[in-house]
C-alpha cells in the first residue's frame, strides 16, 4: 500500500449533459397521447452515450452527452450494455410526466432524486452491480409536456450516491507513465473499445508488476481474483483532462461498500483521438461507507447557465402542423 502523503484534492467528476433530439419529443408526445392517455405518468427510458468524441469536443471540454431519441421508449430496449453497432453504452431510467407547471413545481425534488438513486444503491447492496455494473449508471427525468403548444419543460437527473466523506485523489498520472509498456497500453485500449461493460478489472499476469504484462477480467471476477487485482479500468466519457466522468462516482461507492478498500487505482481509458492519448491513472483514497443508512443522492442536471432548475424546449416551429404547412406552401 502506498503512503499518501500528498492528498491533492477531492475528486471532481464531469457531469452528463442530457441531449434530447426532436424525435425524442415527438415520440414522448405520441406515447403520452396514444399509450398513457390521461392516467399514466411514468415511462421507462433508455439513453446512450458515446465514449468517442470529436477532436473538437476534447479541445473545448464539451460536456459528455447522453442521447435520448426515438428509440429511448422502445419496449425491451433496456439492456444497458454497449451496442456494438453504434459503439455506445446505454443508460436506463424513468420519465415522470406531470400535467401542469404547478404540478412540476410541487414535486419534492429531494425525494424524487433519492428515489431515482435507489436502484443503483440496491444494486450495490444486493451484489447485482457485480454482475451488471451498468446498473450503477441511471437517470430520471421530470417532464411537463404541453402537447397543445408543443412546449416541453423538463429536468434530468443523473443520480450519484454521495458519501459523507468525499473521494480524494492521491496521484494522477498519464497512462503511459504508469504502464510504459506499449503492448499493455494497446491491450487496455483494445479492451476499452471492445468490452460490453463500461468497466473491468486489470491485473498483472506475473507476480512481479515490473514484468509489465497486464490482463483484463470482468468486474465479477474481483471476489476470486482480488489479491491480484491492481486496478479498476473505466471506459471514460469525459472530455476534461484528468477529470473522470460521472459514471465513476457510483462505481467507487460500489467498491467502498463491497470491498471495503482504503484506496483503489483507477484507469480512465479514453479513445485515442488525433494521436494523443488522454487516458490517465488515478489513485483514489476511499471513505468508509456504511450499508445503513443509504448515502444521500445528488445529480440534478444544471441548466446551461449553471442554475438548478428545469429547461424548456419549444418545438412549435417543427411540430405544429399549421405552421409546418404554412412553411411548406
Amino acid at each position, binding site marked *: 500500500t502506498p503512503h499518501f502523503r500528498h492528498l491533492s484534492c477531492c475528486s471532481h467528476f464531469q457531469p452528463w449533459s442530457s441531449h434530447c433530439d426532436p424525435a425524442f419529443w415527438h415520440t414522448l408526445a405520441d406515447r403520452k397521447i396514444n399509450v398513457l392517455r390521461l392516467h399514466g405518468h411514468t415511462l421507462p427510458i433508455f439513453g446512450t452515450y458515446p465514449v468517442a468524441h470529436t477532436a473538437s469536443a476534447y479541445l473545448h*471540454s*464539451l460536456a459528455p*452527452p447522453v442521447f435520448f431519441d426515438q428509440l429511448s421508449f422502445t419496449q425491451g430496449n433496456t439492456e444497458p450494455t454497449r451496442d456494438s453497432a453504434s459503439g455506445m453504452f446505454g443508460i436506463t431510467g424513468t420519465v415522470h410526466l406531470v400535467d401542469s407547471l404547478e404540478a412540476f413545481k410541487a414535486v419534492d425534488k429531494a425525494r424524487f432524486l433519492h428515489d431515482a438513486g435507489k436502484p443503483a444503491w440496491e444494486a450495490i447492496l444486493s451484489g447485482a452491480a457485480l454482475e451488471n455494473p451498468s446498473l450503477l449508471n441511471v437517470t430520471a427525468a421530470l417532464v411537463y409536456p404541453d402537447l397543445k403548444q408543443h412546449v416541453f419543460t423538463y429536468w434530468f437527473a443523473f443520480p*450519484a450516491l454521495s458519501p459523507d466523506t468525499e473521494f480524494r485523489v492521491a496521484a494522477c498520472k498519464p497512462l503511459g507513465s504508469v504502464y510504459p509498456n506499449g503492448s499493455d497500453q494497446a491491450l487496455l485500449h483494445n479492451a476499452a473499445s471492445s468490452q460490453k461493460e463500461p468497466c473491468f478489472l486489470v491485473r498483472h499476469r506475473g507476480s512481479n508488476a515490473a514484468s509489465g504484462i497486464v490482463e483484463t477480467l470482468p468486474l465479477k471476477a474481483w471476489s476470486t481474483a482480488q489479491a491480484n487485482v491492481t486496478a479498476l479500468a473505466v471506459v471514460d466519457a469525459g472530455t476534461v483532462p484528468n477529470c473522470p466522468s460521472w459514471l465513476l462516482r457510483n462505481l467507487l461507492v460500489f467498491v467502498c461498500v463491497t470491498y471495503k478498500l482504503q484506496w483503489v487505482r483507477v484507469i480512465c481509458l479514453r479513445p485515442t483521438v488525433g494521436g494523443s492519448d488522454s487516458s490517465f491513472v488515478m489513485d483514489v483514497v476511499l471513505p468508509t461507507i456504511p450499508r445503513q443508512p443509504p448515502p444521500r443522492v*445528488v445529480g440534478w442536471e444544471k441548466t*446551461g447557465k449553471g442554475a438548478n*432548475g428545469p429547461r424548456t424546449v419549444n418545438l412549435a416551429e*417543427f411540430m405544429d402542423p399549421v405552421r409546418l404547412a404554412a*412553411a411548406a406552401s
Partner: protein
Amino acid sequence: CAKMQNLFRSVVESITPTLKTSHFFENGVLTPEEFVKAGDLLVYKCPTWSWTGGDPARTKPYLPPDKQCLVTKGVPCLRRARQVEASVRDEFFVSSGEGEEDWVATSSEAGPTGAASSSGAASGGPAAAGGDDDIPDIDDYTEDVEDDPSALSTGGAAAADSNILRTRTYDLTITYDKYYQTLRIWLFGYNESGQPLTAKGMFEDISADHANKTVTIEQHPHLPAHYATIHPCKHSAVMKKLIDKMQESGKEIRPDQYVFLFLKFISAVIPTIEYDYTIEVSS
C-alpha cells in the same frame, strides 16, 4: 407548392426501380449497396459516426433494417457560417471550373420558397426572433437542491474560470435519396444551453448561398421529426465533378469513399459544424 412536389417525388420514388449497377464514375450517383459499403467505411474510420435503423415504421426495404441512415450527434459548432464564408468559398469553389452556379442554383422545384417562408412563418411565433436566447429556460424558476462539491462546474460564473466552452451543437444524419440516387444531409441544431435552435438560427450555420435557396425544413425519411435538409438535386453533379477532378490528378477513388467525398463537399455548405471525417480523399 413544395407539398405537391414532395408527393410527386414520393410517387416517382415508389415506381423508380432501385439503382442496381454502379454509375459512380459516370454520373456521380450511388446504389444502395454502395451506400452501405461507404457508410461502413465511414463508421469504421470515424467512430463518432454510427448507423441507425431509425423509426421502424419508416424502414426502407432497399437498405438493411439496422443500416438505414448514418448519424453523428452533439457535433460542436463554434462560429457562424458568415464568419468564415469568404475563405471557404475561395478554397472550394475557385477551382471547380464552371463556378458555384452549377450546383448552388436552385431548380424550380427546390426549396427557396420553403426556406424563406419557414423563417417567415417563424416570425409570428414566440420562438421567432432568431438568435440563441429566443426560447428561454424558466430562468426565474430555480430550486434549492443539495450542494454537490464533487461535480465539476459546467455552467455559470464558476465555469467562466475554466476552459470549458459552451457552444452550439448539431445532430447530423446522412440518408440515401432514392430519387436522386445520391446522399442527403439532414441537420438539427441546439444553442449553447442545449435548446433547439429555430430554423432561422440554423440557417446562420449554413453558407449564405444555400441557407436561402436549397435548405428546407422537412420530414426526415427515417426519424419521426422535422429536420433542416440541403436539397440534393445538384449533389450528383458536384460529386461527379469531384470524382473527375481526383481522377484527372491521378488519385484513385473508390465508391466506398463516396461518403468521405460527400462530407468534404458538405463542409463547404456547413463550414463551421465540426463533424468528423478522416481526410482520406483530398482533391
